[in-house]
């Protein structure tokens, strides 16, 4: 029996009370130890105890958004993982990627996925895209204490807006800061240690209304540029055939590019760099 249950096997009162439609709010009552922000941390800076995830890029396209992440996790000067997946679907129409302390980031993603699905099931309707972004900001805010001790995690959130306001593109992107600040971005955004280089690459190449196919290329190119100049970002690994995770969110829902699809794109990018290393 999981934590939070009555030993008699009955549903405790707070399970059946009206309460809210938020799963995290429910957990704070039923099983606060399952929430990442509630754990006591030893004093001092703990930045180097766990692996760090690095660069994520997101691009708004004519039909939605594309999000891509490299596959590297680092611990100081070591490579902790070559094939970590840092971009995930948040629900049927939105994507989330994380940079920072990998463990807390993965937990945040899991919790956020349940949060969105839980709301959908309780209310019988999906949250608006703005609502999802606000909810994620609140969850990042809950981690502020740990962030100040070096266990910071910052997500990138993007999705296809099923009911957009006028003049707002179907694809929308939000970035966050460790304090839970929420910023809607136009066009493209990158987070993580290689984001400076990825964003510089995108600045020169991005055009509003780009097609999804072109945006996938742009994203992989931008990650290549990030890996070129940032040691914590992994480039395409042609030896082991490890390529970035690329996902799209459009009117048809979220989709992760298959191994064949991403291999084709990544190999083309690498071949292009043989001609011109600067891209």
């Amino acid at each position: 029996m999981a934590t939070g249950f009555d030993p008699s096997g009955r549903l405790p009162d707070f399970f059946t009370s009206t309460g809210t439609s938020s799963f995290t709010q429910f957990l704070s009552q039923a099983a606060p130890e399952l929430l990442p922000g509630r754990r006591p941390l030893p004093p001092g800076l703990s930045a180097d105890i766990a692996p760090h995830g690095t660069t994520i890029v997101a691009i708004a396209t004519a039909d939605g958004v594309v999000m891509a992440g490299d596959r590297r996790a680092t611990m100081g000067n070591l490579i902790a993982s070559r094939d970590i997946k840092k971009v995930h679907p948040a629900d049927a129409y939105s994507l989330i990627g994380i940079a920072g302390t990998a463990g807390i980031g993965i937990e945040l993603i899991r919790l956020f996925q349940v949060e969105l699905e839980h709301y959908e099931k309780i209310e019988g309707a999906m949250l608006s895209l703005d609502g999802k972004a606000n909810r994620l900001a609140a969850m990042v805010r809950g981690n502020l204490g740990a962030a100040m001790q070096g266990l910071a995690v910052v997500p990138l959130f993007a999705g296809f807006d099923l009911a957009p306001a006028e003049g707002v593109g179907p694809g929308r992107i939000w970035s966050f800061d460790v304090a839970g600040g929420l910023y809607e971005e136009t066009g493209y955004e990158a987070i993580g240690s290689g984001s400076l280089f990825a964003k510089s690459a995108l600045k020169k190449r991005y055009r509003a209304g780009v097609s999804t196919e072109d945006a996938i290329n742009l994203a992989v190119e931008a990650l290549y540029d990030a890996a070129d100049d940032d040691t914590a970002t992994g480039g395409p690994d042609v030896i082991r055939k490890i390529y970035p995770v690329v996902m799209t969110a459009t009117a048809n829902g979220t989709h992760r590019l298959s191994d064949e699809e991403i291999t084709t794109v990544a190999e083309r990018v690498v071949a292009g760099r043989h001609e011109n290393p600067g891209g």
Partner: protein
Amino acid sequence: MAMQFYASPEQVQRDRSEYARKGIARGRSAVVLTYEGGILLVAENITTLRKISEIYDKIAFAAVGRYNEFEALRRGGVRMADMVGLSYDRRDVTARALANTYTQTLGAIFSETQKPYEVEICVAQVGATPEADELYRITYDGSVMDEPGFMAMGGQAEAIATVLRDRHDATAELTVALALASEALGSVGGENGQARQLTDKQLEVAVLDRRRPGRAFRRLTGAALTTLLGHESVSDADLGEVDAAPPAPSEGKPTESAASETAEGTEK
């Protein structure tokens, strides 16, 4: 001191049972049955308040009786399922565990409180084959029954179940199963014992789709439901989504909160 009248425990239980049964019988009925492609849940329901809903990947919930009472149980079930799924793994959420919790909860309410819940609920879990499907009926007093592929709940459930018992076929197509469900629900409640023809406006329909990976629950509404009721099949892709779309942005009101607007105004 006022005189206390003695009521035997048997009498008290009987009274409570009768009270709960009467309450349940007042409402419209629901049926749940397996078919070749999954489990079909159909309730007679003209309101937008739902009797059928999703609990987890392979698990659905259907109920009849008092709305506020089964809605509380449904919420509890969703919360429990999501918590177990987060603590362990998505595969570890089972209908049997949920049915156990419901039977304990309803049993306690029946024997310990003045007023029993006037509800009857079904917890359904779809498996890889019709034989692997699980249907649990949990009644107001906390008794639980494992049903053999079909069940009816609510007022005149016996009569409805008779129709299902004669004609239920676990290898039937969705259209055939839906026609049977709608006929069974329409077989009672007509004037002078006549059968009623139920339309898509009177039915709340959902399926647990055996073949769909991940969340198997699909609500059938609108065009897809009308087509199916007309004995025509609908492609899997048009079976409808998990649930409704998000609310549309309202006119004249900003869709962003004041906080995010302030944040956007500042230079980052």
